[in-house]
């Protein structure tokens, strides 16, 4: 037996036991009260049977027997039911404590093995959880303002208190995030029934296959996508899957197939609804857009296929040849897109003529705080999700002849395509600090002027029209009270020409939340040393730091000493009120603890003195 299944059953059982107790205490004895008791007992019995809880099933079966005669309840039957509910309550309590010895399902553990222990859980109102999360977010924003105050006043005690506050707020957020998580499969509990009913009504045969249901996501994501997914599935059954005869003529199996999958990439959840139907008729979409005066005839004629496909998301634009009673009123894909965008995500369609349609919905795994690096480039400031960041390096940029907006950076000897961040930055050339980020296409370098800070951002979605290139994950208010646009690494990768190949991301563990970020530098013997990112003011180029008159040092066997290279990246840090730069000839990395790959800690404290 799966622990998660048992936990779900126990949650459900608590609700039914509450319902049974309420019905028994209500004083009602009519047939309606009896029917309500029967419903609770019967549902519980089904759950107990599916988990092989024979003793519980048997007790519930007895309860049904008490009610089997129908009609009103008498004193005797009420008495027996109360005793029975007490017995069921006791058995459920034992299951919750992991004390029960009964699991008679033959293919499961031996009859005497104990049930998996289930950690005690309390039910909490979603609105209460949301209020707590809001308060935690406000706390994080206040912390940002305090950090800014500590920076401007250079108050070391305040800075220390802010650091501790930061750790507490981070733990609070992690706890709240965990409390909000639910398996994705809760999204599609209703869907097999929807497919079955709709296919039956349309005279079609359709199977629904699901995968990735164990992926855990923010409950608000589940809530926001549940209804739109029903629309998407109804669309797939109604408009996607062809009638059996058409499928036979096209040489396809008579039974249509809809594949519903969930997967995690970087910090996003990708849900796909793929059918093996006829695909979307793009000319019909163009025609419908003209009829609905969304487009002129000439405009529609010259609309490329991708833009025509995007029309399917327009409100009220049905793709069906005729409006059907079930889902052909054009309600559906626009609702899916609106829900995805309201979560800061996106919805896209892929269609192959005769081979089917895939709807891809991508949303952030969590709609809470997002840890991000604040980077600056060409006088502009942007945020980059920390979950996607892999490495920072100083590199020469070699423009690609076929793609002038892309250059090849060399990151620890490995070529990584890089782009300039910022509107006015122009083509990448010369040399720059390169922040390497993981994208759905592979690793991409962002050529920037420096990393100035790290903040937990409450990301707000941007309307799609404001971000036509799709490179923004949203926008947020920083601790200093100003706004910043959060870049979406996947969106940036999508702007690259298809011919530019991105190297694969070796560390595909980005979905795991980071514990502590620290920046690593190389010492003169190429040994890596780590400094908590909170102590780092920013990363800049050697020339910039030297021009600003910052005293520069290199790491020698764990201590600071004279610089040996007058090039590379410089980590600007503050130690005991002194600002200094640490030169790292091989670039700087961002690592996430505590599994720090053998990186040693560089101790920077008030006792610090540079080596002679």
């Amino acid at each position, binding site marked *: 037996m799966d622990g998660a299944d048992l936990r779900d059953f126990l949650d459900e059982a608590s609700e039914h036991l509450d319902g049974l107790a309420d019905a028994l205490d209500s004083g009602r004895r009519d047939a309606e009260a009896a029917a309500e008791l029967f419903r609770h007992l019967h549902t519980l019995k089904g759950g107990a049977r599916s988990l092989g809880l024979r003793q519980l099933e048997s007790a519930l079966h007895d309860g049904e027997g008490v009610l089997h005669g129908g009609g009103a309840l008498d004193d005797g039957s009420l008495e027996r039911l109360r005793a029975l509910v007490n017995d069921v309550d006791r058995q459920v309590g034992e299951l919750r404590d992991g004390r029960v010895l009964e699991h008679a399902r033959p293919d499961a553990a031996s009859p005497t093995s104990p049930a998996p222990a289930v950690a005690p859980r309390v039910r909490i109102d979603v609105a209460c959880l949301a209020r707590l999360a809001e308060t935690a977010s406000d706390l994080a924003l206040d912390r940002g303002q305090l950090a800014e105050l500590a920076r401007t006043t250079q108050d070391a005690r305040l800075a220390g208190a802010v650091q501790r506050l930061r750790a507490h707020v981070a733990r609070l957020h992690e706890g709240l995030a965990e409390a909000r998580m639910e398996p994705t499969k809760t999204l599609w509990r209703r869907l097999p029934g929807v497919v079955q009913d709709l296919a039956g009504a349309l005279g079609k045969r359709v199977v629904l296959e699901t995968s990735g249901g164990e992926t855990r996501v923010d409950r608000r994501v589940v809530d926001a996508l549940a209804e739109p997914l029903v629309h998407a599935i109804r669309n797939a059954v109604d408009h996607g899957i062809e009638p059996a005869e058409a499928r036979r003529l096209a040489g396809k199996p008579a039974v249509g197939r809809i594949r519903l999958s969930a997967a995690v990439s970087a910090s996003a959840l990708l849900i796909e609804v793929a059918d093996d139907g006829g695909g979307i008729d793009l000319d019909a979409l163009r025609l419908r*857009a003209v009829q609905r005066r*969304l487009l002129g005839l000439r405009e529609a004629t010259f609309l490329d296929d991708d833009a025509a496909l995007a*029309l399917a998301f327009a409100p009220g634009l049905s793709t069906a040849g005729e409006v059907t009673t079930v889902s052909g009123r054009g309600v559906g894909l626009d609702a899916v897109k609106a829900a995805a965008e309201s979560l800061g995500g996106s919805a896209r369609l892929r269609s192959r003529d005769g081979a089917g349609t895939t709807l891809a919905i991508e949303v952030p795994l969590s709609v809470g705080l997002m840890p991000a690096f604040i980077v600056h480039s060409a006088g502009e400031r*942007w945020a980059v999700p920390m979950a996607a960041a892999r490495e920072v390096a100083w590199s020469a940029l070699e423009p690609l002849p076929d793609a002038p907006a892309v250059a090849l950076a060399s990151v620890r000897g490995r070529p990584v395509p890089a782009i300039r961040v910022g509107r006015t930055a122009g083509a990448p050339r010369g040399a720059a600090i390169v922040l390497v980020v993981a994208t759905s296409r592979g690793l991409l370098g962002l050529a920037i002027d420096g990393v100035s800070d790290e903040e937990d951002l409450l990301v707000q979605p941007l309307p799609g*029209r404001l*971000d036509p290139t799709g490179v*923004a994950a949203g*926008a947020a208010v920083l601790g200093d009270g*100003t706004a910043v646009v959060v870049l979406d690494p996947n969106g940036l990768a999508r702007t690259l020409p298809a011919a530019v190949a991105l190297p694969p991301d070796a560390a595909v563990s980005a979905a795991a939340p980071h514990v502590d970020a620290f920046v690593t530098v190389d010492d003169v013997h190429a040994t890596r040393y780590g400094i908590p990112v909170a102590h780092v003011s920013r990363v800049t180029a050697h020339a910039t730091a030297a021009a600003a008159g910052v005293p520069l040092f290199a790491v020698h066997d764990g201590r600071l000493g004279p610089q040996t290279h007058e090039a590379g990246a410089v980590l600007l840090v503050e130690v005991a009120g002194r600002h200094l730069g640490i030169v790292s000839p091989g670039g700087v990395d961002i690592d996430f603890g505590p599994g720090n790959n053998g990186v040693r800690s560089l101790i920077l404290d008030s006792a610090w003195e540079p080596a002679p």
Partner: protein
Amino acid sequence: MTTAGEIVFTFTVCRHLLGVAVRDVSEVGVCPFVAPLHHPPAPFVGVAAHRGHVVPVVDLCPRHRAEPPPCLFLHAGDALVALVADELGEVAQICPVADELPSVPSWAVGLVTAIATAPRIGLVLLIDANAFRLWEAPVG
């Protein structure tokens, strides 16, 4: 649509006097720091923080400004939009003179809904805050 007799908030953009219905103005203040966007559709230039929320910023005549300019926070549908102005003008009662627009600057084409006169201040190009709605944008 602004109608005759309505009270409008006037402001200048590139030496043109513009007006927007007072009912559409949530607040007037100094424009907050504008975070740029990648290729936003004109006249949007970026986003700014306003009372803890991110609002889109509209600059009808973008150029370098030495000082933070004044800004009108407008109700555009359910959302707020920050509209950058060069100078703030008077609050005036207007009488529209023509729905047919003679010549309006290129940046105002599609935004100006009518031309009005107002006592003492002359011609005012009326704009509709709903032109900056983003969430329920039509396709195409």
